[in-house]
């Protein structure tokens, strides 16, 4: 099959042409800038080849914010198109591509990287480890996720975007109804990122099980560690299903098999089942770490330990377990029969029970506390009422018979945005404001943070609250237009304006990051929030070896205990020993690039080229197998110098305050 160059780039649409030019200019600009600043070597040495969990985490976060921007533009385009009846901004095809990429990017390339990024930075610090269990694998995970995301993102300028929805239901997503390669991007790009995520899951399970410091029993782990641990287990249990589903989709689309197709005995319902067998656990994969972050933030800023720690742990385990047993609620309307629908209605509603336990525990953590309204805490506070709306409507959707009226309407869209945005995005924001000093050694500006908060929260409610009513009035999801007679106009307009306000809020975040990077005070305490967990027991930003001397845990909220009892905070000279650290490696990024190239060829259905590129992957594995680099030792003098420097600043700041 010859290459059809005329079809290679998407042409004929001014919006896309504009983006193509913008992308090209940006890339030239970045390359020129890095070259001008002579930073290539630095980038390669310090970032591209790093295996340091903190740096990998920061790269995940950077990627998540960028993807938030891309997905957000998609969202704004949709809102602009449907702001008025019979909108003319986008045509049907374009709209379909936009909501498809919006969904995929927001879940897989925004929410997941941001959460996994924060997990990466924080978990090893919280459990007093020097890194994750498999640092090189961790780098590979990141670069694979990144590679998949980039592959997915180029689709709208090269080759064509997927356009069958983020759920990609068959037969629509098969070659019989979408013969272009757009949906190949879906099948292959997500696959690559998904493999990375699966590796992350394995990595974090082992890290948490094997690398906790002395004294930190499972029931003394911080809540964020607990939720991330359980999330990793759900990842390992559910991502292989996605791997298989996407592989079968790839076979159907590129090799002509009949798994889900209309012809040849394929079964479209099989896709729906496999997709949601992964898809529902996935929503809990993103929400559980977020719950953990809220737990940390609420407890820190109420200056109280978490209320009902044990029941919190039981409820996450319960949620994780139930999350595997509810997938059918996404298609009550498939006609599977009343018994099936009844059973899945019950299992779904049962999830509300542990969730409710968590909400009350958070509330009672605040009771009798002393609540400080920092930006991080504001996000956690706004989360509670917003998530309640999401959760209660979730229970309404869980009632099979009632769902017949809500399904696929804007009511459903409102529900999942009311759980995902407060549950994940608010949490990530809370986490970023809270842990920013830990990552960068300076705070985010609180004033800008509050502007960010108010615009975002008000915009969010204004965007999605009307959708409940629209849905109950018969407005369906994914429809690029509606006529004026429907009467949806006014609420749709309110919703679109809300989206604009929300976008301004996001703008404030970006500005805040920029402003704080330039102007924020660098002389801050290593523990600016008077926090409770171990990540604050070392410098901010943490040195690459994390802890000069590994702390010993005696109770829950270990660092709080250390501070209260002045136990283990001082570092004596003779306690400093050499530290063994893993060496950097270029292999992960190279392998991810090869993966990306192989994926690209496969997407374009150039099968031989893809096979050749895939041999590159195997070559990478072989190189890795023969790699016996065992890391290096940090000399005592270097550690001493580092520790002295930050402890001096820390002391000054603390003396100054008191």
């Amino acid at each position, binding site marked *: 099959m010859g290459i059809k160059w005329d079809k290679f780039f998407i042409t004929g649409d001014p919006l896309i042409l504009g983006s193509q030019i913008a992308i090209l200019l940006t890339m030239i600009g970045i390359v020129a800038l890095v070259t001008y600043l002579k930073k290539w070597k630095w980038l390669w040495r310090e970032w591209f080849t790093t295996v340091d969990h903190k740096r990998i985490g920061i790269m995940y976060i950077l990627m998540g914010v960028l993807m938030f921007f891309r997905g957000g533009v998609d969202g704004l385009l949709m809102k602009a198109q449907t702001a008025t009846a019979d909108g003319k901004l986008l045509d049907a095809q374009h709209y379909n591509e936009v909501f498809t990429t919006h969904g995929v990017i927001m879940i897989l390339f925004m929410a997941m990287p941001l959460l996994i990024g924060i997990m990466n930075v924080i978990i090893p610090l919280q459990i007093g480890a020097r890194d994750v269990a498999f640092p090189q694998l961790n780098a590979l995970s990141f670069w694979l996720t990144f590679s998949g995301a980039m592959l997915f993102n180029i689709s709208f300028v090269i080759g064509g975007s997927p356009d069958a929805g983020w759920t990609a239901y068959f037969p629509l997503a098969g070659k019989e109804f979408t013969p272009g390669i757009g949906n190949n991007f879906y099948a292959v790009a997500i696959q690559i990122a998904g493999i990375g995520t699966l590796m992350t899951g394995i990595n974090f399970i*082992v890290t948490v099980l094997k690398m906790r410091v002395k004294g930190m029993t499972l029931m003394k782990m911080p809540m964020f560690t607990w939720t991330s641990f359980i999330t990793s287990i759900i990842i390992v249990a559910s991502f292989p299903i996605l791997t298989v589903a996407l592989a079968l989709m790839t076979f159907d689309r590129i090799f002509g098999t*009949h798994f889900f197709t209309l012809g040849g005995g394929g*079964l479209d319902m099989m896709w729906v089942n496999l997709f949601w067998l992964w898809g529902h656990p996935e929503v809990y994969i993103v929400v559980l770490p977020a719950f953990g972050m809220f737990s940390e933030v609420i407890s820190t800023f109420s200056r109280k330990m978490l209320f009902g720690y044990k029941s919190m742990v039981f409820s996450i385990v319960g949620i994780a377990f139930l999350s595997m047993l509810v997938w059918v609620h996404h298609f009550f309307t498939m006609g599977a029969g009343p018994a099936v629908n009844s059973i899945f209605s019950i299992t779904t509603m049962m999830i509300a029970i542990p969730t409710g336990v968590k909400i009350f525990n958070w509330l009672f953590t605040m009771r009798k506390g002393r609540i400080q309204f920092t930006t991080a805490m504001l996000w956690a506070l706004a989360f509670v009422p917003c998530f309640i709306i999401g959760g209660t409507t979730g229970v309404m959707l869980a009632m099979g018979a009632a769902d017949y009226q809500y399904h696929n309407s804007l009511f459903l869209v409102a529900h999942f945005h009311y759980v995902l945005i407060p549950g994940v995005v608010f949490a990530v924001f809370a986490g970023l404001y809270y842990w920013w000093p830990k990552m960068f050694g300076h705070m985010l500006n609180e004033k800008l943070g509050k502007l960010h908060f108010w615009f975002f929260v008000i915009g969010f409610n204004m965007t999605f609250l009307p959708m409940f009513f629209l849905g109950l009035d018969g407005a369906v999801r994914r429809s690029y237009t509606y006529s004026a007679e429907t009467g949806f106009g006014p609420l749709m307009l309110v919703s679109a304006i809300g989206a604009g306000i929300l976008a301004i809020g996001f703008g404030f975040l970006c500005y805040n990051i920029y402003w704080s990077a330039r102007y924020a005070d660098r002389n801050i305490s290593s523990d600016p929030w008077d926090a409770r967990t171990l990540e604050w027991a070392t410098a901010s930003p943490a040195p690459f070896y994390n802890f000069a001397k590994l702390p010993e845990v005696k109770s829950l909220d270990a660092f709080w205990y250390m501070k209260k009892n002045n136990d283990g905070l001082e570092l004596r000279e003779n306690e400093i020993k050499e530290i063994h650290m893993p060496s950097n490696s270029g292999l992960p990024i190279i392998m991810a690039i090869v993966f990306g190239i192989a994926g690209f060829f496969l997407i374009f259905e150039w099968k031989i080229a893809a096979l050749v590129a895939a041999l590159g992957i195997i070559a990478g594995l072989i190189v890795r197998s023969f790699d016996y680099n065992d890391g290096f030792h940090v000399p005592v003098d270097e550690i001493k110098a580092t520790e002295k420097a930050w402890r001096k600043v820390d002391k000054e700041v603390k003396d100054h305050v008191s």
Partner: protein
Amino acid sequence: MSANLNTALPLEYQTEQNRMNILGFWIFLGAEIILFATLFATYSVLSTRFAGGPTQNDLFEIKGVMTETILLLTSSFTCGLAIYEMHRGNKKGLLTWMIITLLLGAGFVGLEINEFITYVHEGATMQTSAFLSSFFVLLGTHGLHVSMGIGWAVMVMIQIVKRGLTPVTARKAFIIGLYWHFLDVVWIFIFTFVYLKGMVS
């Protein structure tokens, strides 16, 4: 980390990093179980959708499949012997049994490829019907795993030859062993639920 040898334990468990690698691999096998379970589920749903194409009864022949099974089961046994020799510190024994294992494995892969070619010649390709799609992908995935396992084991054997039995090489060999037994178990399921069940019905 690697400096702390606990010599009371078997070679492959002596360092903390080794213990983590082995635990990580067990978890990876957990993920593999889910992967194969999904493929089995797919097969069992689609296994009666012939779309006018051939059925299990038209295709399967017990003789070839039996040979494949015997080869793979034996290889699992010899693989166990290899690890046993490793624990006795017998490098030569380990390598010998490993080579036998891989030869048996290669024989299995060869027979399987041969079986596939026969089917394709009979007009049963993976594009023919949903049944055949799921059949080829389930077995192909397993076969690919076995082939990758052979390649990987060769790499590890080269390292053992070059470096001798160290905690690191011992761990690698041990992990290969786990992987090999796992693939054997998967094959038992394939043999039972695909071949035997297909030929009985």
